[in-house]
């Protein structure tokens, strides 16, 4: 997370000495109150700062905020938009949970977007290879292939890190651009729809029931990806709080030397965490390509892998918090789209708005471990 502020040398309470200053003081134990209060406070601050931004752009801030946060759930088109929430939240949650496990352990997989793409390509390839065979085993095999694709892509930075001590942040990020190139190749080359009149893009899975990730319950936008996201949330929570591997993940992130003393092998932990986050991102990509997206196309990826980083922190790296944060972020997506079509707000403004959320979250987060003290004395 954000850089730790320098430790103050001491607190002076004497009224005789020097001017009054605000000082950050480390709390003896992290504040439970701020642990839970940070996300709502960050959301409110984002609304205020975002409102100022929108006002400066000549829009009515109240209207924009209402369009983003209120209309998708209770507005005129809520019957449709509510379903969109889970459609967007599903992949965000799935990816963010995987990332959070790594972040907890101090392993920074920034390339979930690439793993998401590779999961989609692997999953889709299996389905397209057997087209048009009908069997109920096709979709499960595609799920496995999707997870494998993401896992494989995440193993590249993992093994480079454990073998050559490379930086996983840079390698995983760079591999996103490699994956995007492969995606372009796939949609114009090896996965191109032979009946697509030369247009780029694969066959559409909506026309292939055995390989399609159809809605299980359309009004809520529930498909297998949503189910996987919610189940993963619960499983990850159990892992972190009840299982030895979860303890080791938390320990490695908080006190790496204590983790080695406990008996954690840093290399194995890197492979485990990168593997889980890659596989979950791959799953998300596979569910997306066979469901809401429908086909492999050049612009298949829409930044879920990056937005999931915000979701992971917004949810306090806690799986259940991430489920809530995923819905909140989906709200800004769905509402943001509404705002851009109805109010003519540029996409970039919406992205700035989402970025503000992370900014304020990390800023307010300081209060979990530190408190402000009115202090007297020179610095």
């Amino acid at each position, binding site marked *: 997370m954000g850089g730790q502020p320098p430790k103050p*040398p001491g*607190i002076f309470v004497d009224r005789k000495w020097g001017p009054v200053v605000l000082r950050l003081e480390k709390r003896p134990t992290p504040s439970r109150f701020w642990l839970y209060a940070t996300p709502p406070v960050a959301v409110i601050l984002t609304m205020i700062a975002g409102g100022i931004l929108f006002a400066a752009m000549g829009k009515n801030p109240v209207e924009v905020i209402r369009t983003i946060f209120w209309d998708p759930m209770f507005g005129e088109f809520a019957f449709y938009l509510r379903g969109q929430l889970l459609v967007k939240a599903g992949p965000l949650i799935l990816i963010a949970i995987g990332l959070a496990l790594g972040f907890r352990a101090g392993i920074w997989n920034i390339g979930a977007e690439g793993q998401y793409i590779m999961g989609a390509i692997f999953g889709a390839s299996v389905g397209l290879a057997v087209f048009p065979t009908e069997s109920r085993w096709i979709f499960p095999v595609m799920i496995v292939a999707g997870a494998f694709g993401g896992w494989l892509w995440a193993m590249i930075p993992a093994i480079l890190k454990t073998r050559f001590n490379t930086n996983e942040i840079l390698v995983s990020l760079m591999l996103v651009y490699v994956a995007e190139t492969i995606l372009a190749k796939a949609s114009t080359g090896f996965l191109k729809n032979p009946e697509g009149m030369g247009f780029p893009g694969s066959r559409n899975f909506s026309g292939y029931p055995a390989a399609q990730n159809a809605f299980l319950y359309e009004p809520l936008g529930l498909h297998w990806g949503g189910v996987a996201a919610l189940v993963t949330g619960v499983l990850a929570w159990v892992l972190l709080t009840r*299982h030895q591997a979860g303890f080791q993940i938390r320990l490695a992130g908080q006190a790496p*030397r204590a983790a080695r003393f406990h008996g954690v092998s840093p290399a194995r932990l890197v492979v485990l965490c990168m593997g889980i986050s890659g596989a979950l991102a791959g799953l998300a990509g596979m569910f997306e390509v066979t469901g809401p997206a429908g086909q492999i196309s050049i612009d298949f990826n829409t930044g879920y892998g990056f937005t999931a980083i915000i979701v992971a922190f917004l949810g306090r790296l806690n799986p259940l918090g991430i489920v809530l944060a995923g819905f909140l972020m989906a709200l800004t997506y769905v509402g943001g789209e509404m705002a851009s079509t109805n109010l003519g707000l540029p996409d970039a403004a919406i992205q700035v708005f989402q970025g503000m959320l992370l900014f304020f979250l990390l800023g307010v987060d300081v209060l979990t471990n530190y408190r402000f003290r009115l202090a007297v004395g*020179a610095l």
Partner: protein
Amino acid sequence: MTRPELLRVEGITKAYPGVVANSDVSFSIGEGEIHALLGENGAGKSTMVKMIYGLIRPDSGTMTLRGAGYAPTKPAEARRLGVAMVFQHFSLFEALNVAENVALGMESPPPMRELAARIRAVSEEYGLPLDPSRMVGDLSAGERQRVEIIRCLLQDPKLLIMDEPTSVLTPQEVEILFKTLRQLSSEGTAILYISHKLEEIRSLCDEATILRRGKVVASCTPRERTAREMAELMVGASLKTPERRVAAKGEVALGVSDLSVDSPIAFGTSLKGISFTVAKGEVLGIAGVAGNGQDELLLALSGELKAAADKVRVAGRPVGDLGPVERRRAGLVAAPEDRYGHAAAPDMSLVENAFLTAGVRKELTRNGFVDWAGTRAFAEEIIAAYDVRTPGPDVAARALSGGNLQKFLMGRELMQGAGVIVINQPTWGVDAAAAASIRQSILDRAGEGAAVVVISQDLDELLEVSDSFAVLNEGRLTKPRPTEGLTMDEIGLMMGGAHGMEVAHHAG
């Protein structure tokens, strides 16, 4: 002999939230006097000297320096007025040389060449040999301390504060340091000497002020008192000497042969051909100045550093290539020195920290799932047995005082019923009463048949608990000898004497 008064401290009080560090403390130091500030950990010695050095300010009370009001607001001001301080923990940059380090501490350093010449001059004058062009990373702890002392002496101080200066020195180095301090004193520099080592104070200091729980409980002339009298003043109770049950020496429980490992620590010391055995019921004490491979030895025994299988054997079984989990299973537990971040995870609760090492031997997992109820019960057991002062087992480890956390961590390892126990610095930063009870439980475990290795820089502690005694020096271990009958001189020679100091003093 009456001396003109240099510094007078009157009615100084300093409170932190929840604790009064100093309460109405008064004493005075004469010119050229060596004055001891004596007290247990947490008695308020460090707070007191930090106020004299301008690092923190008193809530109330006054100080006068040579008759004038003295209220430094920062260390630079204290230095300008002639007060210098050598800290217990050095603030030196290992990748810079001696002269560069000294220059960093000065407001307006002279040109490097001139500074180097002055360092040479001062070091010769006071018998503290030091080559200004040497890298600090290559210096021993004693030599590093010399850098700090010379840094102070260059400012020509009237009062030199020394915080626990001998904890990193060999007995010979201590003698040489004392010689330097006596020379300074005879030249009129007063020394405020903080320590809890009573024999040292008796041999060096003119006057002593004894603090207990932030208050002055006595002042005395150390030469006229016995060490025991002063210790009892310090603790406020009569002291119990640990009693040892003599156990019949059993078969070898821990065997180490020709163990060499590279240090994973920057500027660390690699281990070179370490060999020793510890029998059931035996306590092996390993002495040595900090930084001579103690941390590395602990890592190599705990399993954090691996070697060939037969280099380390527990009850005859080769474990050298096994990690910490398998070694615990084989019956070896270890307690590292650094409490915050190595032996314990500071932000985790005591329950979680209990699981950190006890999970294996106390069988606190089922199919990979942690038995948190069982772990909590074990944590509560430790808290009760070792008198750990904490509101409960769910408190974060860093919320405990150093001594309390140490008691918890010692309990965690000693209560696992292991056959081999390795401890680095068992009583570091622990008050005298708690230290005595920790030593007692080490002896109790040995009495029950455990083989114990105690690595410590406190010679008195080692002489008290160990049956055999060895010294770690630059990564090599001397042959263990029976502790009984060892003299301080012999120990000093085992420790390698004084690092590069003999020549200078014989010459001077």
